[in-house]
């Protein structure tokens, strides 16, 4: 049972649910309390103690249904109800056969109890093996290979799927991670389950009846069916243990690829990645630091601490002042020269706005406008094209845009504000109005310029980076998501 729990937790982790060892213990305790007799109850119980965000709950539901469609529902560790559990396994198995094919998809997962209870699992070998695996493994293997022919002949599907599950456990099906490994594991299971015996039988039959005899065909049919069963089993395990592995790999690649090179089809994934990143950063930095011993005397506490000294106020206590989270104003260039990157920068701004309370966003190319409202009222899919349509495409004019910015927002910049300028600094040979930049610089707590171009290109052609750069606390290249993360991390760290 504890082994089953750990493999379930492993499956959950593969499905992106964060589970700590302590939570696993809690879940075991809870499961022990409610028992394994009722599927819905068990599911509710485990969900309460393992999945701790709404997204995780969804993943949990899916994984639970998939996992317990072919794991045992019975606690077979204690001896006295072993017989009973055997019995009910067999019962479950019969019902389970038809539910077998459908329970992979998540659509039927929520709360259809009849179906759910039915799929309580035919191939229950692993749970049983969990009792004391070392001791039983050899014996069971011998048993299964002995009876393979019998099982096939009598088409006892329960016994067969149990044997498959047992073999799967033995070859370590839990370590399957990529779909390319399907063949490998399939073959190993077939071998383990006693394929050789079957082949021998086929060869013997051929010798007797010649190629194409009825007995030979029958045996070949049996082999085909066995192979299909094994493939199904491997397939389901792959879905269980490896569903996110490929995605994770892609994400890693996407994170470090240059933003200009990300392809259209990856946008969706990029989006969730960006969001994840923004969330991580904010939860990391939402902690507010205390500045102690500054500001006002805390009269109440001082009195309290000084009663013991007959009310002589010599042990003073001060009100602690908290520093608010930073106010961020982000100005984003969406002109033609940065069009490929603009989408991501906007995406990041959007996500940042979702997680930080005080972000004001502006977009510009030829002129500038505030887009905070757009971000707040629209979905990201609508907001970004809208902004690109409204402000994008035109030729950049930093001068005009900064003037616009000064009109709209300069008065709101104070010593708590961090201003981020996202853009390549290419102003089409117009005056970039560095003087406005200077004014912003003077008022704001921090000014940061993020440029998608590498530093070597700054100041070449119509790039005005060198003029703008002096009026920033930090000017950095920011080409990939990794860069972006690092920079924003830095902003939040120092601005807090």
């Amino acid at each position, binding site marked *: 049972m504890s082994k089953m729990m750990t493999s379930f937790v492993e499956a959950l982790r593969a499905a992106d649910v964060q589970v700590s060892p302590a939570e696993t213990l809690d879940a075991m305790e*809870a499961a022990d309390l*409610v028992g394994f*007799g009722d599927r819905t*109850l068990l599911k509710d119980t485990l969900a*309460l103690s393992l999945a*701790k965000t*709404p997204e995780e709950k969804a993943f949990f539901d899916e994984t639970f249904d998939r996992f317990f469609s072919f794991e045992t529902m019975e606690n077979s560790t204690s001896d006295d109800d072993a017989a009973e559990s055997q019995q009910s396994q067999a019962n479950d198995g019969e019902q389970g056969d038809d539910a077998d094919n459908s329970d992979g998809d998540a659509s039927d997962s929520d709360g259809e109890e009849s179906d759910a209870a039915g799929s309580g699992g035919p191939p229950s070998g692993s749970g049983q093996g969990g009792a004391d695996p070392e001791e039983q493994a050899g014996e069971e293997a011998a048993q299964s290979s002995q009876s393979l022919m019998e099982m096939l002949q009598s088409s006892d599907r329960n016994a067969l799927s149990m044997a498959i599950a047992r073999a799967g456990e033995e070859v370590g099906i839990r370590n399957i991670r990529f779909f390319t490994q399907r063949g490998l594991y399939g073959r190993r299971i077939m071998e383990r389950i006693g394929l050789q015996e079957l082949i021998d039988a086929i060869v013997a039959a051929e010798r007797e009846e010649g190629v194409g005899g009825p007995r030979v065909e029958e045996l070949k049919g049996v082999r085909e069916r066995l192979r299909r069963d094994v493939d199904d089993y491997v397939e389901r395990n792959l879905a269980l243990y490896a569903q996110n592995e490929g995605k994770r790999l892609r994400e890693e690649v996407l994170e470090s690829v240059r933003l200009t090179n990300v392809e259209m089809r990856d946008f969706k994934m990029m989006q969730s990645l960006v969001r994840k990143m923004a969330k991580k950063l904010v939860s990391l930095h939402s902690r507010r630091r205390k500045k102690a011993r500054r500001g006002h005397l805390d009269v109440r506490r001082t009195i309290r601490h000084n*009663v013991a000294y*007959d009310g002589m106020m010599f042990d003073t206590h001060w009100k602690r002042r908290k520093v608010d989270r930073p106010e961020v104003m982000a100005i984003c260039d969406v002109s033609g020269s940065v069009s490929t990157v603009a989408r991501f920068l906007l995406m990041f701004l959007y996500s940042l706005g979702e997680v930080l309370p005080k972000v004001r966003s502006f977009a510009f190319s030829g002129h500038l406008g505030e887009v905070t409202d757009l971000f707040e*009222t629209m979905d990201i899919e609508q907001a970004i094209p809208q902004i690109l349509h409204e402000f994008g495409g035109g030729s950049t004019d930093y001068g005009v845009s900064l003037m616009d910015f000064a009109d709209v927002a300069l008065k709101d910049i104070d010593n708590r504000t961090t201003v981020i300028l996202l853009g390549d600094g290419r102003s089409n040979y117009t005056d970039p109005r560095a003087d406005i930049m200077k004014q912003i610089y003077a008022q704001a707590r921090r000014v940061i310029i993020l440029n998608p171009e590498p530093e070597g290109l700054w100041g070449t052609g119509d790039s005005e980076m060198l003029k703008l750069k002096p009026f920033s606390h930090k000017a950095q290249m920011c080409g990939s998501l990794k860069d972006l993360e690092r920079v924003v991390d830095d902003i939040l760290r120092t601005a807090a």
Partner: protein
Amino acid sequence: MSDKVKSGAVQAEIELIKDGFEAGGYVANTHIATAVFLAKALDKPILVEGPPGVGKTELAKATASYLGRELIRLQCYEGLDEAKALYEWKYGKQLLYTQVLKDKLADLMAGTNGIDEAMERLHTFDDTFFSPEFLEPRPLLKALQVPDGGVLLVDEVDKSDQEFEAFLLEILSDFQVSIPEIGTIKADVKPVVFLTSNNTREVGDALKRRCLHLYISFPDQKLEMRIIEKRVPGVPASLRSQLVTFVQELRTKTIKKLPAVSETIDWARALLLLHTDELDETLVRNTLNLLLKFEDDIESVENEIPGMVRRAREGG
């Protein structure tokens, strides 16, 4: 005990909780009842999350009345600290005590020779200055001291500071607090603890790990109708199903703030006051501000009201 029997017993108990809740006017689904059962059986706090107005706070109240225990509520806000959450010395009384002590000092010290002897005499008295008499318990301490166990509701824990959250950890895992001057105070009967969060800030992992996590979402049509039936009994059945259908459809729209159960209840009450038997367009238009709390939201659904009313009437 075999598993089947065990599960059966547990299920019966969960049903009992459900019925108990319902008798108190709180309609819960099995999921919620299971959470309460587990919290009680495992002595674990429940972290309840969900959109505002789905009855998170109400759940704690219902549990308290079901168990017949005292509900102790701690509302969290920015800057909440130990002195307001845990305990405080009654320093006014302590001051008075020193005054009294001063007056009596001469009597007490009568007959002592020299300062050493006086000090010795002084030490024979109990240190009443920092004693339970002068302790002002705040909600958290109170919850531990309730003789037969209470129900502690830590409301909107996401509004408190990170430090306070860390401080909660000790209490929630061991159900004890240490007061340096007195010692450790431990709960005789562990209270049932509810923490609620609206997710204005991600609650820390450490806290989440120690809690059962219950997510309450908007109820489905059936459950919501039963809730209305329980909470606003006077509403006729046809109107009830109409208004619930309407609200359910409203929740599928993209608006700033979706109407919650509490809003449905308010609306149902209002409709009852207006002696309505059936939804109609003007009525909905006039009372929509009970459901939607933003002008933008009202404007954005305004045009769809006739269709929604029609569908609600057909459905109901």
